[in-house]
């Protein structure tokens, strides 16, 4: 019998504190795919909020914490493209003063995967056996797409969901306008961006919009709730875990 794949969850602070159901769905999907899932309790945040606001030394401290927590893991899996790019792309930059640490960090980063990329590219799973009867569209989270290069993974997984009708929208790869503190520092621009996004989602007739990042989901859900849209924003893990139903 081949050895079971062991993966540590980096659950990310937003999923931990705001969207725990997303985390639980991710665990169940991974377990169903035969992964032995671990949760190192010492973890908190990857430091991206500080890094994106220019507080690099605070972010570096949290990068150290991440390294300490996950250095011994076979794989690290997380439900967010932007935290993923923080670890896989930007930590390298933070550790540039210390080549030895940087090398250790690169090794862990190389074993760290965003959820959809882990399923498709590491486990080779495109179909998790989920079903959803309705129309779904995809919002490509910027960091997942452009820093981590995930172009098709989520769409393949969505298209394999039984009963799901996939609707491609023109501006699927345009930013939703979240951008962390950007959304409160420049609320006018952020609102204009999500406004355009919602117009196309609404026009597409989709029942759900799927995204793989809590930041985008917060922006989508927040604005959709205010507009009282019938369409719902869900995380890919929830869809694959059969937790999504259509609003009436």
């Amino acid at each position, binding site marked *: 019998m081949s050895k079971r794949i062991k993966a540590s969850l980096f659950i990310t602070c937003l999923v931990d504190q705001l969207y725990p159901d997303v985390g639980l769905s991710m665990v169940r999907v991974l377990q169903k795919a035969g992964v032995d899932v671990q949760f190192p309790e010492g973890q908190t945040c990857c430091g991206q909020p500080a890094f*994106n606001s220019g507080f690099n030394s605070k972010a570096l*401290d949290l990068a150290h914490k991440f390294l300490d927590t996950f250095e011994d893991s076979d794989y690290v899996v997380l439900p967010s493209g932007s935290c993923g790019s923080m670890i896989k792309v930007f930590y390298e930059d933070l550790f540039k003063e210390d080549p030895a640490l940087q090398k250790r960090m690169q090794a862990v980063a190389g074993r760290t995967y965003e959820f959809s990329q882990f399923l498709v590219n590491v486990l080779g799973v495109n179909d998790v056996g989920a079903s959803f009867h309705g129309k779904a569209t995809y919002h490509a989270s910027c960091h997942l797409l452009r820093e981590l290069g995930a172009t098709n993974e989520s769409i393949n997984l969505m298209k394999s969901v039984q009963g799901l009708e996939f609707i491609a929208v023109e501006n699927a790869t345009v930013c939703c306008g*979240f951008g962390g503190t950007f959304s409160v520092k420049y609320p006018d*621009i952020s609102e*204009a961006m999500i406004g355009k996004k919602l117009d196309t989602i609404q026009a597409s007739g989709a029942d759900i919009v799927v995204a793989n990042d809590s930041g985008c989901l917060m922006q989508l859900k927040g604005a959709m709730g205010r507009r009282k849209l019938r369409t719902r924003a869900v995380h890919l893990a929830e869809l694959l875990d059969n937790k999504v139903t259509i609003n009436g």
Partner: protein
Amino acid sequence: MADIKTKEFKSESRKALNNPQIQKSLVRVIDHFGEARVNAIEEITPEVWEILREKARTIKTHTMSYLDHYLDLMEANVRKNGGVMHFAKDAAEANAIVASLISAKNAKSVIKSKSMISEEMGLNHVLEEMNVDVAETDLGEYIIQLAEETPFHIIAPAMHKSKEEVAKLFVEKAGTKLYKEIPELAEASRHLLREKFQFADVGITGANFMVAETGTLVLVTNEGNGRMCTSAPKMHIALAGMEKMLPSLEDLGVFLRLLARSATGQRLTSYTTFVSGPKREHDKDGPEEFHLIVVDNGRSKMLQDVDLREALNCIRCGACLNNCPIYQNVGGHAYGWVYSGPIGAVVTPMLVGLDQSKDLPFASTLCGRCKEVCPVKINIPHMLLRLRNKSTQNEGAGDKPGVKERVFFSLWFYMVKSKFLYKTSGRIGSGAQKILRMLKLENRIPFFGRWTRSRDLPLIPTKSFRDRWKDVGTAE
């Protein structure tokens, strides 16, 4: 230097968002440019496009590393061709050189073709003060000259104006009839400008490229006005930022293929003009004098910064503007100076000072679209992050980051550093939110108000993931 209004980013962006004409123009022009660019790349295939981008990046990186050598080579070849190359350390010095050349000629009228560096220098203003009649001859630049504005877009300076607005400007500032249609307006501008071309004493142009091995200046235009400026007047003065350098004509081939496709989706612009010095003995016409002014104005400082020097590779195609979701919403004037969009957010703080332009690096979601479309693969998001860090550390900035922000991140930092505080904060947050909701005060908290005015806050659950983890798995 041109007026700096970068501190007004927030209010100016709000104005643009609420201006229906600007919003209409943005959609129209940006859709057009965006589609044209994609089609132009399809035509030569994305694979070939990637090869060209990589080549261009290599050439630029090499050239910037040996810029002193290529500047010397350029100077020697311009001299060999019978021209004069000047070097200006800043805008004031560049303006002074132009002024002295014009005074020496006793010139009264100047025609200009589109030049971003002259916008940077605020040259028109200097010439007007000298009582020299200066006319922009690129139609877009002509329009914004009449309107006394700065360019709204690097390659389409007047894209924000409707034909009605232009017609009104022509009546008020150029004394024409009130025209209704675009062809009539274009025809009117031809007549207005033809006279200027005929009698101008001096032609001033920018430069898209300088080719060191031949001492050649390369201009790309679509209206033919550039060529008129380099050939009709007795004196031609060319202005170029020192980063416009390329080693050889062979290198130029790579960039000509990238520039027009990225900018307008054309294979080549209608005119590609090569200028190698003044009129020679056997030439029938052309300027008697040729002066090239190479301008630093903060560029050597950029060159010294390993994290930011890449911005000097920019060929000003405007693709990052057209594809930026921020620019698509607020347009060019919000950026408050000459350069706008993602590249403006990097270049402006470097050239006018970060203390003057603190909003620019922060007014981005770091979505990475600019990097994806850049023909020379400039990693703009990474440079914005570097500038944010500089700003927070007070490097080269006059004022410190906002107190609220520093306090927020300090508190946040203590929370995420400690497992205990981190765990309890969720519970406290959840409880506090419930109370605030009950009292209908949730939307009144200062920091969150900017979120909640248009978006619901997520409801913080009583139990976090880590509290519920044991339901599905076992802790390590």
